[in-house]
């Protein structure tokens, strides 16, 4: 059976259930790269441009990991991911990612490039092209696509229910229940501990190596973690209407959910997690700090991560933040 390698980085955290179901429906075997580790980061850094953000370096690392063990390499090109009236984009680096990989790594297996450009091309057409690349009959492609869309919807439902991508994926693949997930340590009513909202790209928050286990670190300090993936899309849409338009789809989610959290009473603190040298975040982080935050907002902390960030440094900053919000809560 043809093996297809998918790097465990960037688009993995968002669309892996879709990609996996689709590729398996087309009769291939999906191979996922190992979770990020020290060696992988070093390899990625060696092959990648020096002054680029760490998620791209990780992507390089994961590609190198898969390079010699798969028959085909599955790369994604995310150009636009939502259909709306005005132009929307992802980050330019996500648009040019396959071009960068092709130009800087030699000896790659044949590449399957999956283009997501919802503004100009339907997902059906992207899927059809994928089917053609793998030489499968159109009927099979259609069937695989509808199954993939189902699984992806189930996955997104689980994320809305508060699961991490990892848990949501296993729940989506096992196919139990249709919506909502149960999360340990949090219920609906007022939480006993602190409630910290995490705002940041999934590929940073949920990559345990680069985020130094940030979510579990927070829960060990006795705070309940609310992810930005729990904010429903219509709420984000409503929040976004309060600010001038921006055109980066993923940063819209950041802005919308940060605005939602910063105007809520039951959130004790908001952590904005970014990676160094991230282009869109440098602007959106500033917009959040200057346009969204008000006098009465819960404390907001910006945590900037890169491949050099030491575990102790991150731990100290997180502990200090939790101490601070605990103290400010005691006062009020």
């Amino acid at each position, binding site marked *: 059976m043809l093996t297809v390698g998918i790097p465990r980085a960037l688009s993995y955290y968002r669309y892996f259930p879709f990609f996996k179901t689709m590729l398996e429906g087309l009769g291939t075997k999906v191979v996922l790269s190992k979770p990020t580790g020290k060696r992988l980061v070093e390899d990625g850094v060696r092959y990648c441009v020096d*002054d680029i953000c760490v998620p791209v370096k990780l992507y390089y690392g994961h590609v190198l990991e898969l390079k010699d063990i798969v028959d085909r390499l599955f790369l994604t090109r995310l150009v636009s991911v939502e259909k709306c009236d*005005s132009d929307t984009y992802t980050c330019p680096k996500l648009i040019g990612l396959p071009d960068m990989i092709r130009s800087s790594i030699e000896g790659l297996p044949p590449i399957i490039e999956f283009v997501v450009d919802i503004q100009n091309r339907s997902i059906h057409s992207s899927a059809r092209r994928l089917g053609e690349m793998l030489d499968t009959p159109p009927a099979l492609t259609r069937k695989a696509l509808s199954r993939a869309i189902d699984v992806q919807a189930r996955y997104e439902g689980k994320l809305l229910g508060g699961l991490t991508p990892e848990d949501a994926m296993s729940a989506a693949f096992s196919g139990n229940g249709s919506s909502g997930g149960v999360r340990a340590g949090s219920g609906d009513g007022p939480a006993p501990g602190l409630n910290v909202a995490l705002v940041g790209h999934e590929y940073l928050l949920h990559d345990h190596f680069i985020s130094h286990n940030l979510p579990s670190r927070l829960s060990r300090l006795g705070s309940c973690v609310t992810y930005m993936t729990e904010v429903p899309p219509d709420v984000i849409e409503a929040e976004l209407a309060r600010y001038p338009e921006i055109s980066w789809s993923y940063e819209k989610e950041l802005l919308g959910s940060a605005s939602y959290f910063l105007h809520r009473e039951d959130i004790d603190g908001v952590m904005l997690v970014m990676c160094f040298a991230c282009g869109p975040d440098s602007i959106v982080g500033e917009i959040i700090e200057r346009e969204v935050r008000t006098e009465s907002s819960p404390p907001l902390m910006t945590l900037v991560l890169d491949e050099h960030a030491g575990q102790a440094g991150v731990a100290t900053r997180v502990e200090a933040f939790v101490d601070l919000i605990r103290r400010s809560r005691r006062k009020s």
Partner: protein
Amino acid sequence: MKVSFPHMGNAYIALSALLSNLGAEVIIPPRPTQKTIEMGALHAPEFVCLPFKVNLGDNFQALSMGADTLAMVSGTWACRFGYYGRVQHQILRDAGFEFDSILLGRDGVGTVYNKFADTVDGNLALGWLRAFRSFRSKARAVDALEASAREVRPFERERGSTSDALSRSLSVVHESPSVKATGSALDRGMELMDAVEVERRGEPLHIAVLGEIYAVLEPSLNFDIERRLGEMGVVAHPVMSIYKWLFRPLKTDPSILVEERRARRVARPYIPYVLGGEEHQTITGTIDAARKRYDGVIHVFPFTCMPESVCRAILPRIEKEYDIPVLNLCLDEHASPTGIETRLEAFTDLLRQRRRKKPR
């Protein structure tokens, strides 16, 4: 109304002609210096690209010189440049300045058009027409003078004489009050350029300078790379120019549009999708440099620039396929003139050696 805008190379000459013809008083901040950049970097987000910081510093200077209106282009693009005006003006307001914003792009053409209804002398439409004609003639004059300086500089007998002549002719153009006067100012400037004493010393090196447009065109950011190269006896060929930058979005000059289309087409095998910056000019410029048998290419871009980082990863492949040496210069507020100088010297030495081994 006292209007100001950030610097970009010699664009201020054309832009101040535009605004003063609309009846506004134009405040031109001093050319960006290390101090400007530091002031901008102090208030800007940590890892935003360098042009943001320089522009912010320019705005600080302009406001302290008494400007009450800041103009900037703005939009919703994949590149951060579309958000500059919005975020910078917010930063300045948070720092305690009060001023009016003109955000071209976000405010819509109508709002900007009517903004000058009170200041313009006579009919508004005629005022805009007059302003545009003056704007265009000065932009063209600046372009012509810069091009002639580029040709003369590598051969000047006395180091620095070309740059002196250039700055004198630019100020003549800048001070010319009408379209007609700009025409004669250009002639006068060309005479000054022709008067520079030259001596031929063999075939000079030819190097294309390309990359992020602000980094290519703003001397304070790239440590005046064009002049530096010229005074090393190298002919620099910048791929972009102020004139093209100003007129590309206006879509009035068909030759620019044709060139843009061609650049996208040539770059397609390497970057099939639009990234929102000058990536097509960078890729195509490098390929063209090889085809024109230039000796090398210098790729300049600000640290964290998104489209150019992608190009930075692709250029080594073009370097190999087309056999043309490329020097990547990544600039930020910590770059030093000595560092750049050393790298330029090493690069030109390398190119000279290469030429000895492999004559063109």
